[in-house]
């Protein structure tokens, strides 16, 4: 039997797969364009090339287009030969072949940059899938539909709730073992599972009510079934647009009319793609003498079709594995749980569609009253309603502190809120619902508005400002040491031997620690590189903005280096390139490499050569921001055979081990060349990272102990060390590095308040007790999340206006801290402190907070 390619390509299943690939390509291109258009996403993900696969997609996109386009063309042959939808198909082929040819010479995705072109191309990229949907709807006859039976919808929703609950809860024991920082007793787990079941039931009953509302509205029309179907499609489009706007755009700080327009356009496109697939997947039953399918069955067809119950059942049975794999695939690269939440929504939609398809629709068995949307269908939703509110009541009562308030303040395990928070870390479905449940009191809404007005302040609103620690700044009178600053992006303190006795894989850094000063309570002011790095150079907290106007005027570190004629040897990343000018004092390392390619080993190799060639009479300053440990790099690292890191995240531990070897080699070089005892060597990081604590990965908006605590190890020449005093147990910030360098060069940097850095080194009579008592402001680099750090860095209170919650941590010990119950007094006190400090920051920097 000869293979008939044309007949094969005309099969609805094959066409549906090609349509899906076509849709994925254009949705991907559109999403990339919208991300490029968003200043935040452009600066944080695209410019530094955090996701190399995205860059590869962009570079090859014009070729991908042609592969997709030509494949699609084959499926359009019946229409092009004169079938229904001929002119729409000819139009599609003509327009997109011309645009595709232009794209070969001027690839649009490479040209967009961060500007309005991205927004326009994002919208244009959504046109082809919608166009194809129109062609397919014209080409394929509409099915004769019957109205959806509410009883079938209700049963499907109930069953889908159960399947969705099992899908995620079945994996919780496994995730509990994989997630650090989560302690759940058996009783706590049981309560959490029961809560999760009630919440799932509530959500799917809400879905049933939405479907029932559609059915009841459609019943007012003459073509009830068709209206039902299109209302279901519209409901999907509207829900998608809402999710994109409220969840995705909010997470990447993309707000305003353009974010709403982009979300709406994507919602329309997704609804059109879904309807297209539904039309193709429900085709085999057409034409039929009488309506065999109800409107909801056709709507659900994209997942499991309409022909086979077995296929639908297989999808249902596979769902737990699919959900697990999806979560596993995205969790390490996730941005504040965003991708995990999106996979949950996809799994829910697929679960419902498959469950609905799996419930056979036997028309004959349906009684006439089965079509009637009677009151009796409200009983189950009402039971779910009562169950949910009973749960809410128990949850609220359980949060009231027991009789011993001190115990309540210390032992978070007693709080149902904390138990459920911990469970949320291992059940993404529960996490999604929990976050969606959060509402704000009017007081909190006003407070969040205040925080937003101080966050990501427009560049144009920030006036250029001179900031100086010493004025006038003359060359230091004393000997000038060489200064080497290694800021390893995302390196955690507890992955280094000087901070953690269990670390055996950093012997060189361990030795370096023994020869140096190990600051025990070092923190960053910012939870992300974008502001952490400028704050180090300025020695102060920054206006919360992605761009710093005329940064040179507030760049106190650069002023110090220039005043003392330091030769700057640096690698220029996407952030420092905007902060430090290229001038004759700069020797650039790693030329031609992107930020994410900065590797400490190649950097120090090149550095040693430059140092050998450098003028020995001139002091040297090194700045490097290696990316070896950044989660997007480290998580792709294959741990070499023979290495094992029990108790640590192996890819990161292995990367730190590699850093250790190269850093140790550089220290040996300094010793060999007699430079070590004339060098200040600082090993630190811009921020830490979450490596699975409570399910978190990487660093995004959130402020948590493991992200805010950093290593800070400083080697001083012996001639300097004996003259200064330093309190290693007092709170220190990375923003203290610059004023400390001033102090080490013999200056007396001005004291400018808690928003500025303070020298960690002082005269022997210096008192450090004030450091321990002051409250300090911390901030996320990327969103409306602020915190206070108090009690010498032992108490962290976080106001997270992105997630809509306040969190408190006790970080007395060396570990990653422990959650403590948030009390009303704590909230009032800390929110006031944050408000005062943000107001002061705006006042000092002369920018008006904008609502």
């Amino acid at each position, binding site marked *: 039997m000869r293979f008939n390619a044309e007949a094969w390509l005309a099969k609805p299943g094959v066409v549906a797969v090609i349509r899906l690939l076509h849709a994925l390509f254009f949705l991907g291109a559109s999403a990339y364009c919208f991300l490029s258009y968003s200043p935040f996403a452009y600066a944080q993900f695209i410019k530094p090339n955090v996701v190399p696969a995205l860059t590869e997609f962009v570079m090859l996109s014009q070729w991908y287009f042609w592969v997709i386009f030509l494949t699609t063309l084959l499926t359009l042959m019946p229409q092009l030969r004169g079938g229904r939808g001929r002119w729409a198909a000819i139009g599609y082929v003509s327009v997109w072949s011309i645009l595709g040819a232009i794209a070969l010479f001027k690839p649009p995705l490479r040209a967009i940059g961060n500007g309005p072109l991205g927004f326009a191309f994002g919208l244009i990229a959504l046109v082809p899938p919608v166009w194809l949907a129109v062609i397919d709807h014209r080409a394929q006859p509409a099915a004769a539909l019957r109205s959806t039976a509410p009883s079938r919808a209700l049963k499907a929703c109930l069953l889908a709730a159960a399947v969705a609950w099992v899908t995620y809860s079945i994996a919780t024991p496994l995730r509990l073992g994989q997630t650090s920082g989560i302690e759940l007793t058996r009783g706590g787990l049981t309560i959490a599972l029961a809560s999760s079941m009630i919440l799932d039931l*509530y959500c799917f*009953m*809400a879905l049933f*009510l*939405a479907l029932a*509302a559609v*059915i*009841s*509205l459609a019943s007012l029309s003459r073509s009830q079934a068709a209206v039902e179907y299109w209302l279901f499609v519209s409901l999907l489009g509207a829900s998608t647009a809402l999710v994109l706007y409220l969840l995705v755009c909010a997470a990447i700080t993309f707000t305003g009319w353009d974010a709403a327009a982009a979300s709406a356009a994507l919602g329309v496109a997704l609804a059109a793609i879904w309807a297209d697939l539904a039309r193709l997947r429900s085709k085999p039953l057409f034409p039929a003498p009488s309506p065999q399918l109800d409107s909801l069955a056709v709507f659900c067809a994209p997942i499991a079709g309409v022909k086979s119950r077995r296929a639908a059942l297989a999808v249902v049975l596979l769902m737990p594995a699919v959900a697990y794999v999806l979560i596993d695939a995205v969790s390490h690269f996730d941005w504040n749980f965003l991708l995990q939440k999106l996979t949950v929504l996809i799994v829910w939609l697929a679960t419902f569609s498959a469950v609905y398809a799996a419930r056979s629709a036997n028309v004959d068995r349906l009684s006439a009253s089965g079509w009637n949307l009677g*009151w009796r269908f*409200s009983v189950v*939703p*009402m039971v779910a*309603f009562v169950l949910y*509110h009973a749960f*809410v009541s128990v*949850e*609220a009562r359980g*949060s*009231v*502190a027991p009789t011993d*308030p*001190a115990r*309540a*303040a210390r032992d978070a395990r007693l*709080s149902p*809120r904390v138990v459920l928070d911990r469970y949320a870390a291992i059940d993404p479905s529960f996490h999604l619902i929990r976050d*969606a*449940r*959060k*509402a*704000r*009191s009017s007081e909190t809404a006003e407070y969040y508005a205040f925080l937003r007005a101080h966050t990501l302040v427009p560049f144009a609103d920030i006036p250029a400002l001179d900031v100086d620690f010493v004025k006038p700044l003359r060359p230091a009178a004393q000997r000038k040491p060489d200064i080497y600053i290694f800021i390893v992006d995302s390196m955690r303190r507890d992955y280094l031997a000087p901070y953690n006795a269990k670390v055996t894989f950093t012997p060189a850094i361990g030795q370096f620690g023994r020869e140096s000063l190990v600051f*025990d309570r070092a923190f960053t002011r910012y939870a992300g590189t974008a502001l952490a790095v400028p704050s180090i150079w300025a020695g102060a907290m920054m206006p919360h903005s992605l761009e710093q106007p005329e940064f040179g005027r507030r760049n106190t570190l650069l002023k110090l280096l220039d005043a003392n004629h330091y030769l700057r040897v640096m690698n220029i990343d996407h952030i420092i390139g905007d902060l430090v000018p290229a001038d004759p004092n700069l020797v650039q390392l790693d030329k031609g490499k992107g930020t994410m390619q900065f590797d400490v080993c190649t950097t120090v190799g090149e550095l040693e050569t430059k140092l050998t060639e450098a003028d020995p009479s001139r002091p040297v300053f090194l700045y490097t921001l290696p990316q070896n440990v950044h989660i997007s790099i480290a998580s792709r690292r294959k741990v070499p055979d023979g290495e094992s890191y029990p108790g640590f995240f192996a890819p990161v531990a292995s990367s730190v081990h590699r850093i250790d070897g190269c850093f140790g080699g550089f220290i040996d070089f300094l010793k060999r060349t007699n430079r070590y005892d004339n060098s200040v060597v600082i090993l630190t990081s811009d921020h830490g990272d979450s490596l699975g604590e409570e399910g978190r990965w990487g660093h995004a908006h959130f402020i948590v102990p493991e992200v805010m605590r950093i290593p800070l190890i400083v080697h001083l020449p012996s001639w300097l060390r004996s003259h*200064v*005093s*330093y*309190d*290693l*147990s007092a709170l220190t910030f990375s923003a203290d590095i610059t004023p400390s360098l001033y102090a080490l060069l013999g200056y007396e940097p001005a004291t400018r308040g808690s928003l500025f850095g303070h020298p960690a080194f002082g005269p*022997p*009579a210096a008192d*450090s*007790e004030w450091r*321990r008592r002051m409250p300090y402001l911390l901030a996320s680099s990327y969103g409306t999340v602020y915190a206070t750090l108090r*009690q*010498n860095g032992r*108490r962290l209170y976080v106001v997270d206006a992105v997630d809509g*919650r*306040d969190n408190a941590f*006790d970080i*007395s010990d060396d570990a990653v801290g422990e959650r403590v119950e948030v*009390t*009303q*007094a*704590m*909230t*009032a*006190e800390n929110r006031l*402190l944050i408000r005062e400090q943000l107001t002061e920051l705006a006042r000092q920097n002369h920018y008006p907070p904008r609502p």
Partner: protein
Amino acid sequence: MNALRRTLNVTWPILLLAAFVTTFRRVPTEAASAAEAINCDGPSRGSQTEGAVDLTMLERCVTLDPGNVELLVDLGAAYEGSSRWDLAEATYRRALAVDPRDSTLHLRLGTILLRRGDRAGAQKEAQLALQWHPNSAAALDLDARAAAGADR
């Protein structure tokens, strides 16, 4: 009657859905614990009343938040102010149990020990303070006084 029934059949899902959506969200602060009737974690904790240290308030605060080193330091200082050296020593020791690396605590405890005649203890605390705060003039002074036998 039929019209009413028909209207109800059409509207109940919408009404019930509205009830579901509007009662779904919870204000988190409602669940926040009201554990503390007094604020012990800030400048407004009222450690002083009309110039005199409010010992009762501080003791209550320490009961509420036993891991708060700054509170313990304030309480220890208050005991010192009222010449209750034994209580001051015990309080500083409690604080050191929370944060054994705090150089200023070692210094405070050493000073109390010296006052109470425990020169060896004072010297040990001075050394511990110097371990975390090298070259500290205050710690070196305490060490020297303890070695010399001065009691304050």
